[in-house]
């Protein structure tokens, strides 16, 4: 039985190695996109909007928001590539014909996407420091917690992208994805505010926003980078994110197995 799992692991690692090879090809293009996104957001919120009375510590707050939410914007491209493939060349059927179970093919896809956004996202933190200088204090970062949240949030985005690919039936419906799912999720996901700010305003609103998994990404990442005070407990965010990842992942695998009619 162990040899079987070793063989599965070897196939999955080689699939990931293949994806990294492909990733390398368009890495710089993607990296430049991410830098532009980070630069424009951080500069506007930290420097330009301070003249409208925005608190000076809003810079690091929004920087962490951009880094934490980066994976969510990247989701659209991943969903488009998956649906395009299902409707077109169906290269995924080649992966399904390999000696691994079908569920592992989809799980690997989620993992590979998680790794992809992690690599890009990881480089944004030092760039943020360069933009904010002394406003962003690296000594308050809890690095073990940051690594944990970083891995968990990117896993969530990977499996969330897989789930969206499984529910989005056609390429033509992809345009709705950004407007109906990604944008509301982002705006109500604590990107521009903390959970406590909503809770103070309306406890009902606060509790309702807990159904949005992005709130845990934002709160967890801010608790790790900016300190626990003023955010949801780090471990609570981590566990909730883990639950969301498992639920979305399992449902995505079930739906994709059915949709692609595989064994």
């Amino acid at each position, binding site marked *: 039985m162990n040899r*079987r799992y070793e*063989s599965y692991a*070897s*196939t999955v690692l*080689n*699939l990931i*190695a*293949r994806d990294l*090879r*492909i990733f390398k*090809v368009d890495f710089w293009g993607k990296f430049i996109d991410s830098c532009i996104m980070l630069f424009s957001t951080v500069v506007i919120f930290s420097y330009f909007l301070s003249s409208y009375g925005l608190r000076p510590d809003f810079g690091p707050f929004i920087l962490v928001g951009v880094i934490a939410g980066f994976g969510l914007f990247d989701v659209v491209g991943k969903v488009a590539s998956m649906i395009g493939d299902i409707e077109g*060349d*169906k*290269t995924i*059927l*080649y992966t*399904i*014909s*390999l*000696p*691994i*179970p079908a569920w592992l093919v989809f799980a690997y896809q989620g993992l590979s996407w998680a790794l992809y956004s992690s690599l890009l996202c990881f480089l944004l933190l030092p760039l943020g420091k360069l933009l904010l200088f002394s406003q962003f204090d690296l000594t308050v970062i809890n690095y073990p917690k940051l690594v944990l949240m970083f891995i968990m949030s990117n896993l969530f985005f990977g499996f969330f992208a897989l789930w969206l690919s499984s529910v989005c039936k056609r390429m033509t419906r992809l345009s709705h994805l950004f407007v109906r799912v990604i944008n509301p999720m982002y705006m109500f996901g604590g990107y521009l505010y903390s959970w406590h700010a909503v809770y103070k305003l309306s406890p009902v609103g606060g509790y309702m926003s807990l159904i949005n998994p992005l709130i845990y990404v934002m709160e967890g990442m801010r608790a790790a980078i900016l300190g626990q005070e003023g955010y949801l407990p780090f471990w609570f965010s981590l566990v909730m994110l883990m639950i969301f990842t498992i639920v979305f992942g399992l449902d995505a695998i079930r739906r994709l197995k059915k949709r692609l*009619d*595989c*064994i």
Partner: protein
Amino acid sequence: MAKIFIKIASVKKQYTNEQGTRQALKGVSLDIYEGEILGLLGVNGAGKTTLSSIIAGIHPATSGDILYQGASIYNDIVDYRRLVGFCPQKPNLDLTLSLEENLFFAGRYYGIPANEVKERMKTLMEQFKLQEYAQAKASVLSGGYKQRFLIARSLIHQPRLIILDEPTVGLDPQIRRELWQHIVRLKASGASIILTTHYIEEAEELADRVCIIDAGEVKVIDTPDNLKKMHNTDRLENVFLALTKQDAKVGYE
């Protein structure tokens, strides 16, 4: 009599969508012998691709079974997939990777050590005359070369059952002839081959036995010579036309 390699027992396949339920395969039973080329012949939509993808272990049968060495392949589908090399009709290569990279990863997915993969790559590239494109991206290949490369990729793990789904469709006659030679060489290596085609002369030229499928049913399986004798004709095309309905069917493939 050759040994039975794969036994297909009453395989049915049903598709359900918004338009309703349709039967793509209506209880197909046939045996595939060791070392033979079995030609699956049928018009578009007859169920050839559906059957070959079920035999390849990609899609499940709605009912019925496929037996390998007397046991259902579904008892251990992952292990069964190691035996099979599937070459689909539509090229599904990694277009951003070079041919060498495509082949290298294809071998590594099956757990073949890197050094051995490289040796096999060299042999396959030579065999399929692809050396000059080794470093080229798969996206630059013409249709014929893509098809040739797809067959090469499906052989990297040295499968015992090779399924070629319409490998020569849309190719010019010269390239078709070249691919035929490759298929004959594959047979000589001892592998069993399922060759899905709607070119009658291709089946006649290459197949040891021909299975004519129509509307999801097996009409007949026999050697091309026996089929011609049975129908008192010297052309397999006449047998095919006599056994298949002429009206076009709604495609399942």
